[in-house]
Every structure is written in structure tokens, then in C-alpha cells.
């Protein structure tokens, strides 16, 4: 396990990450220990293989899409800052943050950013639109071989019909937000720490 966890991560770095992500000091050191234990190559970055080694993630139908969310466009390695930045989306929204003054940049774990994370799981080519094709591909990942092409096609069509408002046969981020406006995103896309 990351046996020198709290010493290799400097205090200044912890402060920076704290400011950027909102995680507490102990949460950051704990996640750093987790990061180093996943980093089998011990080079300070994680590759896709490092993630795929987690059995519970490997059996998740959308495992590959989630892993992809950690890697910026075109890159194959993610360092600890990037790791934390992505995980920050799942930090629960605290009450004192809800009424924050909108003058600063939006926190990574805001409702909008959580929805953006989910949107990007659907949006395979990162063009800020979910096309029928992309929706079909993601649906296929989730159901495997258990549903026929026609049925899946009709599910995709119906979904786009319900969500699409400007008639371009794809779902933009704003249309996505509208469809999910009643869902308790704050709770369903948050992971609580025990300590």
C-alpha cells in the first residue's frame, strides 16, 4: 500500500488540491494512498491498465467510459491532480456551498458539473452533442447482447424524441439538463466519505 503516503505529497500541494477540489486534508491523503496503490508502475501517473485492474470496475458495463473520463483528450496518463479533479465531481454538495456567491468559478461538484460528467459519458466524440448513434453505442454497452438492434433502436429514437427541442435529432447539454431537471442529481452522483 502507499506506505509513504503523507510524506511524498507536500503540504503546498495538498493545499492547492484542497482549494481546487474542496476535499479535506485527510480525504486527500487517503486518496493519495489509493492512487499510489493503483500505480503499479510507480511513476506517479495512472494508465488505463491500472484502472482496468480493479475487478469491480472491470465488470461495470460502462467501465471503459468511466476510465476514459479521467484522461484528457489524447492523453494516456493521468497524474494525481487530474485524478483528484475528476473525483471531485463526486464530492457531496455541502449546504454552505449551495448559496455561494456566483462570482467565483463554479465548484467541480456543482449540480451542473455533475450533469456534465454524465453527459460526457454519453458523448463519445466529445462534440457536445449526443447523436442517435452515440446513444445507441452506449445503450449497447449497458445491455450487452440481451436486446435486439430494433428494440434498442426504438428506445434510442424515443429518448431523443422526448429530449430534443431544437429538432437537430441529437441532444445538447442544455436539453440534457432539461430532461433531468427533476432527478436528485446531488444525491445520486455523490460519494460520501466515512471520515
Amino acid at each position, binding site marked *: 500500500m502507499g506506505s509513504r503516503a503523507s510524506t511524498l505529497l507536500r503540504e503546498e500541494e495538498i493545499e492547492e488540491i484542497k482549494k481546487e477540489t474542496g476535499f479535506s486534508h485527510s480525504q486527500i491523503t487517503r486518496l493519495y494512498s489509493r492512487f499510489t496503490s493503483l500505480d503499479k508502475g510507480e511513476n506517479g501517473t495512472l494508465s488505463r491498465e491500472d484502472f482496468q485492474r480493479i475487478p469491480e470496475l472491470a465488470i*461495470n*458495463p460502462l467501465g471503459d467510459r468511466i476510465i476514459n473520463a479521467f484522461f484528457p483528450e489524447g492523453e494516456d496518463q493521468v497524474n494525481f491532480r487530474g485524478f483528484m479533479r475528476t473525483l471531485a465531481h463526486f464530492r457531496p454538495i455541502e449546504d454552505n456551498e449551495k448559496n455561494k456567491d456566483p462570482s467565483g468559478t463554479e465548484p467541480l461538484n456543482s449540480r451542473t458539473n455533475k450533469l456534465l460528467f454524465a453527459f460526457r459519458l454519453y458523448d463519445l466524440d466529445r462534440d457536445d452533442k449526443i447523436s442517435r448513434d452515440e446513444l445507441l453505442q452506449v445503450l449497447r454497452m449497458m445491455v450487452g447482447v440481451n436486446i435486439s438492434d430494433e428494440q434498442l433502436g426504438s428506445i434510442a429514437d424515443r429518448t431523443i424524441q422526448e429530449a430534443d427541442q431544437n429538432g437537430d435529432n441529437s441532444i445538447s447539454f442544455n436539453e440534457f439538463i432539461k430532461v433531468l431537471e427533476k432527478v436528485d442529481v446531488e444525491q445520486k452522483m455523490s460519494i460520501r466519505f466515512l471520515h
Partner: protein
Amino acid sequence: MGWFLLPFDNLLCMLLGISFTVWFTLLLVFIIVPAIFGVSFGIRRLYMKTLLKVFGWATLRIERGAKEKNHLIYKPYSNGIIAKEPMSLEEEIKEIRRSGSSRDLGAASQEFEMSDIFYFCRRGVESIMDDEVTKRFSAEELESWNLLTRSNYNFQHISLRLTVLWGLGVLVRYGFLLPLRVTLAFTGVGLLVVLTSIVGLLPSGRTKNFLSEKVHLMCYRICVRALTAIITYHNSENKPKNGGICVANHTSPIDVIILASDGCYAMVGQIHGGLMGVIQRAMVKACPHIWFERSEVKDRHLVAKRLSDHVEDKTKLPILIFPEGTCINNTSVMMFKKGSFEIGTTVYPVAIKYDPRFAEAFWNSSKYGMVNYLLRMMSSWAVVCSVWYLPPMRREEGEDAVQFANRVKAAIARQGGLVDLLWDGGLKRAKVKDTFKEEQQKLYSKMLVGRENYKPGACIIAHK
């Protein structure tokens, strides 16, 4: 100048000679003779109590040091760092859909919602933050410091006094304990090879069995002392008997020494070359162990046949098997391979739990080789463990080998205070099978188009 040094030379030789003699006599009296007769002076337990007091003090100093500087200490938690919902796939997706819909759904919502993805998303990220499997293949983190560099996470809070104590510890461990232990180890193994070969020359019969038992026990006891192992055996009335199979959870190769120093077993394994091979070949001369050639190991039927033949012969010793197939870090018990549970005989479960404060008993075979591991073990403070002999179990009517294996596993996990996992220990090195992902996909598909379209598949892993 030469003549001046001569008397000193002689003196030196004399001193060395005397110290060697004293050394060996002490060794013989305090360690080897008790090992032969199976008695104990109680020195090791006293040692253990002293160590615990010292560790407690060390941890307090670290905490005090950290408080003075107003820093936070890294405290490991082995029970997981995030809260996981114990709901099934179905329940959670239904809840998500219910919260997002203005329609009154009732019991059946069979349509896809874009919010369904939240379930997979959150589960996936939860497993990235903390999963049940990968942490079983690395050493458990300790909550208090045991003065070993290898288990310290709070370096910057060590005061001067603590450093001195640690230095003293290093001196004691490497300067005194390690040479002592290595000597004992060589003595134990050497005696094992020589004496079993001698016993092997006798004709088969009661004398041979009796002598073989005594020889094996004596040599294993010397090896136990070579590790300064302080073992507490519970429920010895349930000790395995001839014609049975003893199964235990596996943490390290030392498990064998720990169990075999309290009873005689027939070992099962692959024949190795080198020193291990010599030991194996010598042991099998005195009493029948089951060694396989490398080529035979793959042949499951051959293995099963040899095992059943062995258990049918009631004069032969109980077989010792570790069904996990690999070393796990002693916080959990992973999937038991069903092979040993298909042979229709009594199974004697044994639970072994190591106390992690004294040594890191888990052998991380992907990180350390065997020799490196043994040296680490011998330079730790001690190996403290508890062994529980559980009541014997038999396969019941209508129970198949896998269910029987899981029942035995659950009993061992409960007794040892370990987490009972369904995951395969083989995941240490191999990738997880695709069938598990297909199970997830099946479950989700049912939610989309209704149950009538499916044959109910056996869900091997309950993904809660």
C-alpha cells in the same frame, strides 16, 4: 612485529571458541531441547508483552509530536473509506427513475431513462476510490506504529527519543535476532532432511510412523522458534484426523510451519528443484506426502484421484490444503477452489489469524521473492498468530461442491474475524472473467424490456 601479535591471535581464537560454545549451549538448552519435547519456557510470551507496551508508547509519542506541530496524522482505516449503498442494481435504478419523473410510475417502469447512467457511473467511481479486492493483495495498514520502517506513514513526526528507540530496535533485530533465527532455521531444516532420510530406511510399520511423527514435529518446532512464532491454538479437540482433509485460509508459506508444528499432515504440492526439492524428497521417505510433477498439476482428474486414494487409506495422515490457491493478506477469505471439496470425505476447517502488529505475515509474491520474504520475517519482531480448529464438516445432501466450499469458507471467515468474499484470489494476477460483466448487463436489460424475455441466469456474484 609478527611475534608481538601472536599472543593476541591465540587470545582471539580462544575468545571466539569460548563464545561459540556458550552460544551453542544456550541455543541447545533454551531452544532446541524444549522444541524436541514440545515444552516452552514462556520467554516468547514475555517478549511479546514487552513489545506491546513499547509500541503503545511509540504511538503516543507520534501523536503527541504531531499535535505539537498542529499537523494531521495519516490514520489508515481498513474498513473502507467511503459509504457504499447496499442496494441492488434494480432498486437503485428504480429509485433514480422515481425521483426524476413527474409521472406516477407504480411498480413497473420498463423504459430507459437517461438518468440510468448515474447508477453505473457512481458504482464505477466508488470502485475507483475504494474496492473490495485489490486491497487484499497488499499488506494491511496498521493503526499504531510497531517501530519497523516498513510500516510507518508519519515519518515527519518522529522525535529524537523515538529515533533512538527505533535504532535500538534495528540493532536488536538485525544484530541479535536475525543471526539467531537464521542459525535455528538452518538447524531445523538440516535436521529435517537428515532425520527423515534415516527414518525412511526403516521398514514400514508402527515404529516408522511413530518416529516419523516425532521427527517432523521436532523439526517444525525448531522452525517455529526460528521465526519467534507465538502461536495460540484454540479448540484442539477438533484437530484433523486420519482420512480427512484439513483446509485453511492462506496468508503465507509460514502457515504450513504453524499448522505442522502442532500435528502431522500430509502435504500436497508441486515438486520443486533446488533446496525445496531436497527437503520434499527427504520428507516423503518418512511418511507419504503428495508431491506432483509440474506436468501432472494441470491434470485435474489425476490430482483428484491421488487425493481420494490417499484419504481412503485410514492409516495415512490428513491432507493439508489451502483452497484459495494463493496468498491473501489476512483481512479476508477469498473464493475456495472446489477441487478439494469434491472428494467425499470429512473436511476439517482451520482459521489462522495473524496479529499484524508484530510482523507483516502476508507474502506479496509479486513484490518479494521467497528468500527476501523469509529474511523480512526473520528480521521482524515476532510472528504472533491464533489458530482455531473448527468442528469437522461433511457435504450435505443436495449440496454441491461449490456450496459446500462456500459454507466452509463462511465458517472460517466468521471464526477468524475476516471478510468473506466471493471474488477469486486468482484476480491477483489474472483479469476478471467477462461473465460477471455479462451478468450486470443481463440485470440491466431486464429493467428495460421486462422479465418475460429472459431465462433466469444464475447470478454468480451478488453485486449489492
